[in-house]
């Protein structure tokens, strides 16, 4: 299994842990992830809030790189995933935008690169049975609230990822790992990550309601797949505790880190020490499969 892998800018800064854990998991499962040479930022929210052509051109350049490699493009960040998918949609449906992109980049892009989330690869290409065989450790009943956030699942016509109101992809992985995925109502609520630095006042409310709901559902930790959700929910907990008098201590762990633990990969390789809220309860729960 071989893919073009788009790390996204956060992989080199706030989400080195997501990057290193995904690479380690992929290696253990013999998945080959190849970074396209010269990849650039997808433009994220600031680009689509500023200019439609800019918002399509930046991802298009990266998709062209994958097209030239003749591979599907694998992504972790939900924001990048959404922008890349949106660009495929733009290029296919708007010839004018396709033409303008072609003129600027000097290469035509037809929207044909298959953009897939790392979770999709695990479920669809690797398969649950194969994964189960590879696990050396179990989450031994750890209660996990899977949080999907916005841009993986919405809008469904474009992302085509699972069910937009009640996705279960991550839940399936948690259950194969021997954890207990919780049925809870905030799987796809917005945590406000896009406003993390600009409207912290609003974000504190949004993140509070998500973490509070997970806690009420009995979660030991929240599993996420996106670096923006992770940073927002992890780093804002101290502010929420101060401003709202809560006592949150909820580890926000990447699904790739949990997978890594079950594959017997070391804590350091998975970047588990980088999390702000200590994931010690998660690490203690993990036990060897006998």
């Amino acid at each position, binding site marked *: 299994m071989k893919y073009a892998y788009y790390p996204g800018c956060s992989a080199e800064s706030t989400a080195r842990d997501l990057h290193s854990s995904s690479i380690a998991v992929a290696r253990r499962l013999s998945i080959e992830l190849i970074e396209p040479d010269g990849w650039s930022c997808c433009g994220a929210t*600031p680009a689509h809030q500023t200019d439609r052509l800019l918002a399509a051109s930046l991802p298009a350049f990266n998709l062209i790189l994958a097209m030239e490699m003749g591979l599907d493009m694998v992504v972790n960040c939900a924001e990048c995933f959404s922008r890349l998918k949106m660009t495929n949609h733009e290029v296919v449906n708007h010839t004018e935008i396709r033409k303008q992109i072609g003129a600027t*980049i000097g290469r035509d892009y037809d929207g044909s690169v298959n953009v897939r989330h790392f979770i999709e690869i695990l479920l669809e290409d690797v398969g649950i049975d194969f994964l189960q065989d590879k696990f050396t450790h179990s989450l031994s009943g750890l209660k996990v609230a899977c949080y999907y956030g916005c841009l993986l699942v919405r809008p469904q016509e474009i992302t085509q990822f699972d069910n937009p109101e009640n996705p279960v992809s991550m839940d399936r992985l948690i259950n194969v790992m021997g954890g207990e995925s919780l049925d809870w109502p905030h799987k796809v609520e917005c945590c406000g990550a896009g406003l993390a630095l*600009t409207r912290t006042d609003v974000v504190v*409310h949004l993140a509070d309601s998500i973490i509070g709901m997970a806690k009420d559902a009995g979660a030991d930790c929240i599993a996420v797949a996106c670096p923006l959700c992770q940073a927002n929910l992890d780093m804002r907990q101290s502010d929420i505790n101060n401003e709202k008098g809560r006592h949150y201590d909820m580890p926000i762990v990447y699904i790739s880190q949990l997978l890594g633990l079950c594959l017997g990969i070391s804590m350091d390789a998975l970047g588990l020490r980088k999390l*702000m809220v200590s994931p010690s309860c998660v690490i203690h729960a993990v036990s060897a499969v006998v």
Partner: protein
Amino acid sequence: MTIRIKKGKAVKNIISAVEELAGVDLSECYQCKKCSCGCPVSGHTKSPPSEIIRRLQLGAGDEILSSDIIWICSSCETCFARCPMGIDMASVMDALRVLAVKRQAAKPKGDIPLFNRAFLKTVNMFGRTYDLVMIAAYKMGTLTFMNDMDKFPSMLKKRKIAILPPRGADKKTVKRIFDSVSHK
């Protein structure tokens, strides 16, 4: 709720500009308000998404570009996902932002346009985002140095933020992309 639209002054309504930028037909909205019910920031704004559409339908002009929702909207796509008419409200918000910046509407709380400029500037320079410089530029512009300073030491210790600028991007192509947009 009563919506008042100023009469008398020759306001040019902006609905067609919004529809063209967003590629939507706002006459299709029949005010079911599903968008506003699901909107995570409805409780934090004076005008939830369905109200913005109603105002546009009733002939709102540039004054609508100062509505707080335009910049509180987190681009979560819930409105679009749930609209029974398939109206791409998230793109409507993007269109309003483009117009707000172009027509110099009042600076919103949190100065998100400045954040966007700071973000895109580092992308233009390095081909990828450079958090440290982007955050510094934004904080300088908004005089909010102290916000989140408590998190910095542990972020540095955990190497959760890159100190050195990003390397490896095809900067030439990225520059060309930015130039093509600014010369449009």
